[in-house]
């Protein structure tokens, strides 16, 4: 392990951490604007030109707000829960290749923090550990809404973890590798080689369970304002709540990167578009899709969610895996 490698890795970690924290903040602005336009509103307009400095104002508010811990809370767990959410969200990004390799002054840079051979498994696993954030937060808050939110979190994430795993199993069987770089290189032959054409069902299943795992709108039952005040985050304020928020948006970016890399050809060159731009277009399309569905669709009920997961998506995912296996054998 050379010194250059260590410095390079630390630099990459800092860039990923800084960039995605900033992007998470910017995504909140974009989300508010897009939602507003879809609902015939203007969204934030007063802070800066077209409200673009709203992110800064929100950040100042979050940082200067009182850090409040309720009397009935279990203090150490209450304090550490948001850190778990934010940390696991960023840890999951360690194994994601964001861009194609490039060269600066003769030094080849791989835009991935750690190229491990089970990258996909690692990403999905670490994102699953992120469940402990809401769970511990809800159980340590000493609040019934928080507890209900935590219970819903566990139910939802555990169930959809199964669908995620089974849905990406079929592409992994085709590629024969769990490394995201291998999956990306498998689709290097152009648009017709994308895995979405051979695995459309897996793509839809992965997208649905991705929405469930990032708690986005059709499935955001775990902090549904109308039912359970703010779910597990009810008792949180200031930067602790902000860390939950950053974690959620970082997870959105992770899911978008995963969907782009596994199914939509990743960072391979797309016609005349260079790979780095191509993957950015794909990722931002998925981010836009997250916001789009939030503007259009209502929530599902928790029992409908469970019905959807175990009676519809899970059997389809299993059938998809079996059929893929049979086709591979033939």
């Amino acid at each position, binding site marked *: 392990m050379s010194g250059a490698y260590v410095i390079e890795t630390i630099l990459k970690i800092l860039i990923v951490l800084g960039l995605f924290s900033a992007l998470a903040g910017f995504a909140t602005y974009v989300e508010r604007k897009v939602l507003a336009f879809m609902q015939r509103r203007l969204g934030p307009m007063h802070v800066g030109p077209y409200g673009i400095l709203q992110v800064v104002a929100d950040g100042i508010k979050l940082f200067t707000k009182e850090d409040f811990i309720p009397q009935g809370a279990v203090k150490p767990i209450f304090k550490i829960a948001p850190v778990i959410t934010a940390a696991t969200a960023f840890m999951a990004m360690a194994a994601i290749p964001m861009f194609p390799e490039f060269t600066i002054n003769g030094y080849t840079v791989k835009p991935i923090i750690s190229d491990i051979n089970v990258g996909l498994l690692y990403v999905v696993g670490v994102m699953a550990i992120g469940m402990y954030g809401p769970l511990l937060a809800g159980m340590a808050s000493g609040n019934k809404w928080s507890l209900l939110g935590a219970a819903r979190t566990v139910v939802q994430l555990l169930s959809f973890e199964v669908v995620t795993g089974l849905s990406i199993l079929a592409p992994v069987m085709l590629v024969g590798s769990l490394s995201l770089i291998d999956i990306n290189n498998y689709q290097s032959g152009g648009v017709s080689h994308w895995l979405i054409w051979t695995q459309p069902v897996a793509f839809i299943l992965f997208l649905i369970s991705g929405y469930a795992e990032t708690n986005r709108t059709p499935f955001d039952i775990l902090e549904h304002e109308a039912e359970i005040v703010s779910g597990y985050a009810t008792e949180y304020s200031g930067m602790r709540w902000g860390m939950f928020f950053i974690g959620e948006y970082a997870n959105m970016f992770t899911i978008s990167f995963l969907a782009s890399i596994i199914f939509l050809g990743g960072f391979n060159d797309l016609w005349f578009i260079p790979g780095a731009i191509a993957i950015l277009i794909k990722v931002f399309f998925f981010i836009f899709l997250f916001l*789009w569905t939030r503007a259009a669709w209502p929530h599902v009920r928790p029992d409908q969610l469970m019905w959807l997961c175990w009676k519809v998506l899970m059997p389809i995912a299993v059938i998809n895996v079996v059929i893929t296996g049979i086709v591979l054998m033939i």
Partner: protein
Amino acid sequence: MSLKEFQNRYVGSQNYKVIQIEEYPKTPWEKFKRVVKRTFKLELFVGLKIVFNEMVKFNIHTVQYPKEKIPIGPRYRAVHRLLRLLESGNERCIGCGLCEKICISNCIRIDTKIDENGRKIPTEYTINFGRCIFCGYCAEVCPELAIVHGPDYENASDQRAQFAKKEDMLTPIDKLKEQKEFQGFGSPTPEADKLIKKTPLAY
């Protein structure tokens, strides 16, 4: 639809569209069929299309309030004004005390005196806006159109009494030319003719 169709009051002969409501599924097989039908009819994407069209059309309805304001009707009852006579600039109030008498929340207080010309004028005219319910009786009863309601609805301040001083309500003598005559109660808005629509009812 033409007006004639609206005027047709015979129930049953109108050209109404009956909304089809499907039977609720009873057996598990029917439920399954409904799920499959809804899945492959792509009903969810209709909602996506609608909101996307709204975004592209960019038909924004927001009124950016402190910068732009919606005009309010002349019937609006906000903080009171005391008007002056247009020619002489004298106060219109003749100190008759009718407003004080009719005020149902007892918030108006007048002190009067006879001035050197033998006219009765108010020396004090106060309205306690902590009590005022903006019913408009004072403006309605005033025989001289002296106390009227103004259009200032932005009455947020440290103390409500700040609106109530006589010199604040009275038209300043140098702004006499800008004083607008009170249209009176029941007066229509300036663009009332444009706003009138035919009532779309069958009777």
